[in-house]
């Protein structure tokens, strides 16, 4: 019987069935559950798994295993690929012995990302083959195939699911997990040492491999053709399902070329298709990767086919597709009227509901204390990527910049150089500190830039689903790296610590940090309430409450709600006690 698997679980399962030995990752939505699944089932199957400190390190570890002839996989989200880019670009020239698969999850929409960048375009840039799954089942099959392809070509292969494949569930019929094959072992050879003379030769080889990969893909079962009249659609990835569903809704017959291998494009397949149809609509999310290649092929082969797609506005170049967008585009392409959707007029005004810091989140105390301490000073708060990015929302509004992982520290140093009258406070999470903050901290100390680095240590990587990081030792196989010791070893002279749920203590530390000369490291530690057991609950003494709503206005805790004139504390309260510390009349007390 098939199992209901999330796309990420299907990818992990595919890798296990393909015989991987090593799997590495850094958490990032929508890719995180790949490693979560591998950690659950991998060790029993003899697979080494780890959450690496960042994506570049993850890829390097996987590559090392592949150098020895073992199959290995590194998974990440699209921005993680940017971090790993340095290793990946050179790795394309060097190649691999054992199958190396990079799973890079894209996030059109974007639902949980800073960019909508298209990994297929990156694959083309890096000259690596890329597979574009249309559903969890195909992601499972493609992952297995990617290892064979990697070994056939001697190149890393990228599997690029998108959010709606990663976080979609589907019934998937599974194979068996075989025993791990023996590892051939690393063989010393000049081919592993990238020197200019070698790169010059390997670049020729790498370009030849593009043709070989295209030929391999010409026979790939992941590319499918149906001929059904002079109007054709070429589609890649998940869009395939939007196209088939739109065709059914509109009741039209179409010729269809489904591309599962967008780079290198299986040229012969595409040319044959273009010869059979009069006009094509190209339907793919994100960048016109297939469209550009099809236009080039049509021109080069002098094929008199009309090509519609993103370049002439049939489909948007930004944002996620859905069945309605694709149905509209197909209707326009075929010059027919789509079935009208019934409108429901006069919808009442709905509340905006942005994500926010959880009830009991220790970051709330950290932001509140630093905002208080900064009241009479000129301060800029540079932020970072994680749950604490939500500290930018009202009422805390304690984040003035957010760019990319670890960038808060660098931005603070740049701002400090040109705005010497302003104190710069860089907030960074514990996992992000290790991921990309550390080199920047070293820089700040070495250059003696007087920024305040605040590590918001909630003892987990919360936003992506509570993965561990080097600052934790969750079992005996891991050694905890102490953040304050790291700071000391880096040469930070002022290191301050506090529990952010103790406002008085945190406020004192914040004031000290803002007044201290030179770079300062502040570590505010309290476990994430999603992981730790609730400490209890608080309640409002309705007689003592003067209905000033200070607690609600200052903290924005979702457990605090106006109730008549007073305030009510919901059952989601975790007993952090921050509200009782800001109440001017001591009307909030612990439930005993």
């Amino acid at each position, binding site marked *: 019987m*098939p199992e209901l698997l999330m796309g990420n679980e299907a990818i992990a399962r595919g890798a296990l069935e393909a015989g991987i030995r090593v799997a590495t990752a850094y958490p990032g939505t929508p890719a995180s559950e790949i490693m979560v699944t591998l950690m659950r089932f991998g060790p029993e199957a003899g697979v080494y798994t780890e959450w690496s400190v960042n994506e570049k390190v993850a890829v390097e570890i996987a590559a090392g295993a592949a150098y020895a002839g073992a199959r290995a996989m590194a998974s990440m989200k699209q921005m993680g690929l940017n971090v790993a880019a340095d290793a990946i670009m050179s790795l394309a020239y060097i190649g691999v012995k054992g199958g190396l698969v990079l799973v890079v999850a894209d996030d059109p929409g974007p639902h949980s990302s800073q960019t909508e960048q298209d990994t297929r375009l990156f694959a083309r840039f890096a000259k690596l083959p890329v597979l574009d799954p249309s559903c969890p089942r195909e992601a499972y099959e493609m992952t297995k195939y990617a290892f064979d392809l990697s070994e056939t070509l001697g190149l890393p292969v990228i599997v690029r699911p998108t959010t709606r494949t990663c976080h*979609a569930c589907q019934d998937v019929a599974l194979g068996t997990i075989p025993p791990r094959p023996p590892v051939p072992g690393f063989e010393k050879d000049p081919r592993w040492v990238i020197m200019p003379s070698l790169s010059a030769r390997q670049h020729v080889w790498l370009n030849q491999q593009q043709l070989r990969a295209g030929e391999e893909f010409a026979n790939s079962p992941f590319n499918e053709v149906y001929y059904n009249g002079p109007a054709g659609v070429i589609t890649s990835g998940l869009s395939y399902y939007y196209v088939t569903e739109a065709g059914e809704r509109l009741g039209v017959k179409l010729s269809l070329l489904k591309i599962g291998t967008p780079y290198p494009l299986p040229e012969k397949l595409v040319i044959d298709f273009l010869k059979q149809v009069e006009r094509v609509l190209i339907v793919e999310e994100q960048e016109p990767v297939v469209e550009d290649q099809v236009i080039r092929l049509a021109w080069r082969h002098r094929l008199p086919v009309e090509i519609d797609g993103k370049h002439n506005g049939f489909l948007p170049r930004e944002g996620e597709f*859905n069945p309605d967008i694709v149905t509209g585009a197909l209707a326009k392409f075929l010059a027919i009227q789509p079935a009208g959707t*019934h409108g429901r007029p006069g919808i009442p005004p709905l509340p905006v509901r942005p994500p926010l810091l959880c009830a009991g989140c220790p970051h709330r105390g950290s932001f509140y204390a630093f905002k208080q301490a900064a009241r009479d000073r000129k301060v800029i708060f540079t932020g970072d990527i994680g749950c604490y990015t939500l500290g930018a929302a*009202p009422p805390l509004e304690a984040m003035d910049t957010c760019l990319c992982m670890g960038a808060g520290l660098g931005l603070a140093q740049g701002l400090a150089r040109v705005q010497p009258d302003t104190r710069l406070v860089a907030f960074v999470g514990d996992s992000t500190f290790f991921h990309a903050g550390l080199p920047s901290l070293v820089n700040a100390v070495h250059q003696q830039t007087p920024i305040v680095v605040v590590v918001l240590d909630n003892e987990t990587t919360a936003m992506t689903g509570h993965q561990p990081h080097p600052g934790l030792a969750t079992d005996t196989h891991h050694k905890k790296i102490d953040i304050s010791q790291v700071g000391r070893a880096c040469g930070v002279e002022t290191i301050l610590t506090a529990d952010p749920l103790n406002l008085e203590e945190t406020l004192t530390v914040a004031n000290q940090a803002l007044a201290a000369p030179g770079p300062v490291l502040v570590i505010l530690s309290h476990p994430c309430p999603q992981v730790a057991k609730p400490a209890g609950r608080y309640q409002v003494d309705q007689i003592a409450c003067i209905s000033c709503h200070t607690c609600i206005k200052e903290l924005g805790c979702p457990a605090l709600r106006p109730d008549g004139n007073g305030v009510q504390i919901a059952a*989601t309260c975790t007993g952090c006690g921050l509200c009782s510390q800001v109440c001017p009349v001591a009307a909030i007390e612990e439930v005993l």
Partner: protein
Amino acid sequence: MDILIAGVGGQGIILASRAIGAAALKTGLRVRTAETIGMAQREGSVVSHVRLGATTAGPLIPRGRADILLALEPAEACRYLDYLKPDGRALISTTPVVPVMASLGATPYPLEEILDYLRNNIARCYFLAAPALAGQAGSHRALNMVMLGALTNLDLPFQAETLLAAALKLLLDRVHDVNRRAFQLGKQALEV
């Protein structure tokens, strides 16, 4: 059958979606779901698409095509109402989750207007004070199970017992009793 589940991050929407998917799979149906995971899960607006039986469809339900709207919060029911078929059915928890932005006065929350709108614009609309029933079962967190229990009255392509078993399989043993009670209370609350 297409079911759209709407609500607020933290209400157990993913579990509800998985349970329906697993129950359908057990009955021999094909399943596709699309879930909201990541940033939006922290008190944000969350929606999950569940598609049962179709083989050519993608994971997202087109607008105006959902057979059932299962809403764990009234404003979220309103927000995703245009996914529902004109003659589709909706099962809605009437207890609002007022966002902090509304508590701060930065966004409206006209509850009565929203409930009236839902009542007047859905062909077959069923309301339930689900959090109260969850509390009665023993935990406010069992709200999703109350809704799943109630949902079994809307001609699902599988038995209520199959859905309950699938949901319990996703939960720790120590919360089974509370969740079983919540499911039954929801099921009884909607029986006519």
